[in-house]
Each structure stands twice: as C-alpha cells, then as structure tokens.
C-alpha cells in the first residue's frame, strides 16, 4: 500500500534525489518552503511534477539527458532513471565531474548510493555499515564506514538486512524482489 508508486518514473527518480535536497537547502540553492514541500511529498511517497524535479535537481538531469541520448531513449524513460541511480550516478562522481574532482573522499561518499547493512535500530533511525569510503584519516581504520539514516522508506528493515542508502536516508531494501 505504501509503495503504490512502484514503477512510477517520477517517484523512481525522486526517492533517490530527495535525500540530496537538504544539502541544496543548506547551500541556499532552494528555499525553505520549497524544501518543506519536497519533504512532505517524500513522506507521502509521492513525487512532485516533472517540471519541479527538473528545476530542483538540474545537475542530475544534465547527466540523465546525456545518458538517455547515448541510448536513443527519452530521458524520462523508467529504465534510464533506474540505470542512472544504479550505476551512472556513482560513476560520474568517481570520474570527478565538476566539484567532485576536488571533493574529499568522505564527502563524495555521501553523494554516492551504497548498499549498506543494518547493524542497529534506534527508533526510526538505523545505524548501517558499508565498505570503506576511502577517506584519509591516520587515526582510524577505514575499512568500514558507519552512517545513521532515517528509515522513512525502509520501515521494515531489521538488523542484518541490506538497504540502499543516499545521504541520511535508506531508499529501498535490497533483495526483496
């Protein structure tokens, strides 16, 4: 019931994009009211209209359009959007596009999508671990990275489950096809 938007292309884009919008707010690229509108939609598992998504997440759409044209498909094609978040998005960051070329590893890591394991639940927050983010820190072992995420879209996640994460959110459960 809560995932009534499954295979809805706007939602498929928005569920991965929303976690980044708090950074857009922090950097003044969107205003508070716009952020609150996006958040309300996210909590309802609903996506805003395409025009809004394309404006707020303009950097992502530059890349999505490129990916789509390479495959001679429409950029709102469901397969293109899924492929963007599954592979292309991380690849662009690893290749060092724009500011990512200079960004420290632990920050690029926040922008990337990871598959992480739930190690603890605290209320509606999950503590997850995934393979090291490659950051430079002589004092600590960096074989594993720890993140705290909201369980908004992965309410059923239990310790030991694997989830896809972006910034401070679990976006979907892994292996529940």
């Amino acid at each position, binding site marked *: 019931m809560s995932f009534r938007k499954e295979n809805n292309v706007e939602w498929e884009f928005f569920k991965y994009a929303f976690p980044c919008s708090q*950074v857009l707010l922090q950097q003044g690229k969107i205003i508070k009211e716009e952020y609150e509108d996006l958040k309300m939609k996210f909590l309802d598992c609903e996506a805003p209209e395409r025009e809004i998504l394309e404006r707020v997440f303009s950097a992502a759409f530059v890349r999505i359009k490129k990916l789509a044209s390479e495959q001679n498909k429409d950029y709102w094609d469901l397969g293109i959007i899924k492929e963007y978040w599954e592979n292309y998005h991380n690849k662009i960051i690893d290749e060092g596009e724009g500011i990512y070329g200079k960004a*420290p590893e632990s920050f690029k890591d926040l922008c990337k999508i990871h598959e992480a394991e739930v190690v603890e639940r605290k209320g509606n927050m999950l503590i997850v671990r995934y393979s090291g983010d490659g950051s430079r820190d002589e004092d600590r072992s960096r074989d594993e990275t720890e993140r705290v995420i909201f369980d908004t879209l992965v309410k059923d996640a239990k310790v030991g489950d694997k989830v896809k994460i972006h910034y401070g959110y679990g976006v979907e459960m892994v292996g529940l096809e």
Partner: protein
Amino acid sequence: MCLAIPGKVIEMNGEDIIVDYGAEKRNVKNLFDGLKVGEYVVVSGGFVIKKVPEKEALEAIELITNSD
C-alpha cells in the same frame, strides 16, 4: 553540486549535541558511539549522519566557500 557542509562538535550532553558551523550553531541528535568534542560531522534532518576526518572537513568547507 551538492556537497554537504560539515560542522564541528562543540558540546555534548548524551544524545544532544551542539554543532558549530561558523556562522551559526545547531542543536542536533547524535547516535554514534564514541563521538567526541572537536570532531567534524555531517548533519541531516537534525541527526548526525556521518563522522568525517578533520582534514577532509576543512577541505570541504574551503571548497564550498570558494565555489559560489
């Protein structure tokens, strides 16, 4: 581009901590074991979501400041 802005932990009282962003300070929740005053963190939705090494945090702040 959306690089997160880090802040420095300046006060801790159980799960309630204060993070300094230079221009402002924010009260947020921390669920990480062993977080210490002086460490740098990234916050989202009022929670610390990640600890970041100081060197990288300072690099990120400089990058964000000079990119606009």
